[in-house]
């Protein structure tokens, strides 16, 4: 948890205070789309796992409780702008 994360409400805080919420995959598709098990699996379980900068969700669980997106360099494990 060496990453420091900027919460939109509380500012830059240490990574221990946050919960990772996965890659930003966009809003959940309609149920009619997810009726196909392969489409459901793609949405729920498949990730890009990018080595580099990716947009992802974090929750300031030990702070204000907000969910928000940051861009993180997964190689250096630092937040980027």
């Amino acid at each position: 948890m060496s990453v420091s994360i900027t919460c939109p409400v509380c500012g830059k805080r240490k990574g221990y205070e946050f919960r990772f919420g996965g890659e930003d995959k966009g809003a959940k598709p309609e149920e009619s789309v997810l009726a196909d098990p392969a489409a459901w699996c793609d949405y729920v379980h498949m990730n890009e796992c990018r080595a580099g900068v990716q947009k992802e969700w974090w929750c300031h669980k030990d702070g204000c409780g907000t969910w928000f997106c940051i861009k993180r360099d997964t190689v250096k494990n630092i937040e980027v702008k």
Partner: protein
Amino acid sequence: MNRLKNLPTLQIDPEKKISLRYKGKSYEGVQGDTIATLLYANGIRVFARSLKYHRPRGLYSLDGECSNTLMEVDGIPNVRCENTPAREGMNVKAQNVLGSADRDFMAFMDKMSRAMPAGFYYKIFHKPASVWPLVIKRIRKAAGLGKMSPDFDMPGAYDEIYPRADVCVVGGGPAGMCAALAAAEQGLRVILLEARPRLGGSYDYRCTQYHSVSGDRNMPLCQRARELAEQVEAHPCIRVFAHTFLTGVYGGHVLTAFQQGGEADHFTQRYVEIRTESMVAATGCTERPLLFENNEKPGVMQPGCAHRLARTWGLLPGKTAVFSIGHDAGIEAAIDLSDLGMEIPCVADVREDGQDPLLLAELEKRQIPFYRGWAALCAEGGKNLKKVCLSTLNGKHQKNFACDILAAAAGLSPLTGPLTLAGAGLKYDSHSGFFLPEDMPENIHAAGHLLGYEYPPAIESSGTLAGLWAAADCGVSVQNAVREISEEMAALPGPLRGSKFVCGPVSGKKTFICFDEDCTLKNTDQAMAEGFDVPELIKRFTSAGTGPGQGGIPGHNLPLYVALSQASPDSSPRPTTTRSPLTPPYLATYAGSSHDMSKRTPVHDFQAASGGRMERVGVWNRARRFSQNQSPKNKSDDATARREIENVRNNVGMLDASTLGKFRIFGQDALKALQRVYVSDMSRVSEGRMKYSAMCNEDGCVIDDGVVTKCGENDYYLTTSTGRAGMTAEWFRFHSRYEKWDYHIVNLTDAYGVINLAGPSARRVLEKITDADVSHGAFPFSAYREFSVQNVIPVRAMRLGFVGELSYEFHVPSSFMPSLWQILEEAGKEFGIQNFGLEAQSTMRMEKGHVILGSESEQRTTLHDIGLGFLWHRGKPEAKTVGASALAHTEKQKGRLKLVGFKTENPADGVPKDGAPIADDRIRGYVCTCRYSYSLKVTIGMALVEDELAAENTRLGIYTNDGFAGEAMPDSGEYMKYARVVPMPFYDPEGKRMKM
């Protein structure tokens, strides 16, 4: 040994004696001694035996860079005695010896070194293959340093601290102190880390004159160190962590370190994790070992070690010291030790020229012969040093000198560990002979001696400059100051030309490039001959640099030696990768102090006073049962909580359910949020009514259940299971994160307490304490009412039936809980009210077939699996309910574990334990909860079993090893108990009792 007195550099208090025990004897030292200096003062020269060859090893450096002085202290193995302060009464033991460090019965291993070439264990003992398992045991026994008893209880107190800084400076020498001051002067928060117990670095033990650039400040270096240290310590923006070792540097500028506690500190060691905007490494240099035959014999030490022994601890290392050096600080040490009373027969310098002429003049003044282009070739003697053979670099001319100390170094190497951990690369610099950082990451700076500066004002200016750059990283405008200091630096001497000499013409058989792993130059040559020709491969083949010192000794010598051997213009070997921890802390330090945090409900003390057996359930303390005091005739403890159960079934009982998760969710989109996370159609909850429902994750696996109450327009109150309370708000928000919904969720778990009043007489108790109409007609099953108790306490009441009797849940503000508890106890007296605990609750709800998630479910259990599929409303696709798609996919899926009720065939067999496997020729499921039912006089339970076994009346075999009863399995001490699948609920199947 007599100590030198009245030196301005001393860090000991000769008046305060301390003693420690070693080899069954008491050894006396003084306040300020480390364990190593205390023993050295008492004539101890051999501190340990080496790993492979059991060669005697002595004091070599004073910063714990090698395993030479690792000892067992008070039962803790591998303590770095060089930088561990001695304390009164310590018990010290030598390691890796059979006998003692002086007389080690394993010393014959040294003669066997020919039989152990590099990588010998990869090559021999493998044929025949059957030999290897035997040999591996012997090798494992011989390998490793230090022993630890499995029963050892680590003494001490361990703490952790997480400070924030704008600038963190690593190294409290002159450059580090100047960097810290420069940044702090800009109003920034600075943290300064220093590995030694006090600030000062290379100034701290030197009395050479310091002249400032302006010429107005002239004083000995040690006094300049104190002057800077006082400024640093007095500065309100600088926080100093002394005796603190950096362990790691991580992305985003997180620095980890550990601090050694002093006698006044409350911790033995503490973990320090610093978050900073910018970092300055001013770690200085260490002396690069000179390689020659027997270069690790006791008596051979770094010039700085000899110098500091005398200057800091008042100990002359011996009588006669030969110097073989490659840097000016070595000449300075020889001059100073000569002045302090040592005989210096000669100083050999690997450099032909480039020495500071002032130092050479001082040598001449003292008539110390100076040999240019000479170096030590061989150290001789038994356990201790007797003479040294010096030679020209090509080996043509040799000379022997008798001595008891050889101060040897080939030159300097910069301490680049923090920089490489931060992500900088290393590149060989032919001017300084250093591997210097290149491609420095953003916001990381280097300063001082490690860049090759040796002239004191240049070191200080380079520190100030780095401090200003660091300030710039924090957004401070420092252009003018940077320009000023850069101009000043341009006028000062730059980095000096350094030596890259490694060794003279030696055979290499007893020339140790790595002390910890007993790795010689010959081993290195063997590795290269085998094709392992770069430092990273040599390290792995020979294990050089893999010992406790982690490359502290071979670090920069290995690549320099490899470069010499490769004879190719393209070869550019680099030091091996540095990894954290740079210095190893205790595991206890990482474990930290165990902050065991738990919560108590508002009526905790009442329950404890009533004989409640309180135990931890998650973060809470809860009453498991009250049975021990309820049976005055039968003192034996009843773990089944029979009396509590019977009292609820026949009279009335009360349970503290305050640990339930409690939430208010309100706002115009509150219903949308509920529809998203609950599987049921929550729009059907009308005002004043409740609905039991469940939440699933996207896999359709059930994660929580609870009751949702509609209190008003767009205003709901909901309960969750105890364990999910902490996650629920986050869960709601996560699943509506893409929506612009207007709703709020508030966690009321700690703000409200809950009392469950249950039993046939529950209504009669309630009628006594409220004026509200609570008759069955006015307050039916599954209804929600708000009223006040005794016209004061606001109660949110829910009529539920978890335990299967007429039952109410009262939710009241936590501050009213003690009053309501007492009011209920008082009002219930005439009906025989008693407390009941978790055990009774669990048995009674099981009799009703009600699940507790976590007991009757696991990670992969879906809503369908536990028979709650009816809660799922499939007609609300617009809600995008979490898990709905997976519930559709898994509805008819085969091969899942299903929840069933069972009854054992023979109650006399006893009760299978929760978790017992259900098996025939293989495991087919497991028991979730199983109890003897006093209400039904049978043993019943719930189990998750393969769907093929879920049909009614299927016979289940429950595997037990309790040795009680059942059918013995052939050839084993294990038993099978048998049970039949029966329908649920077991108790009151029509639910008449809870709807009374």
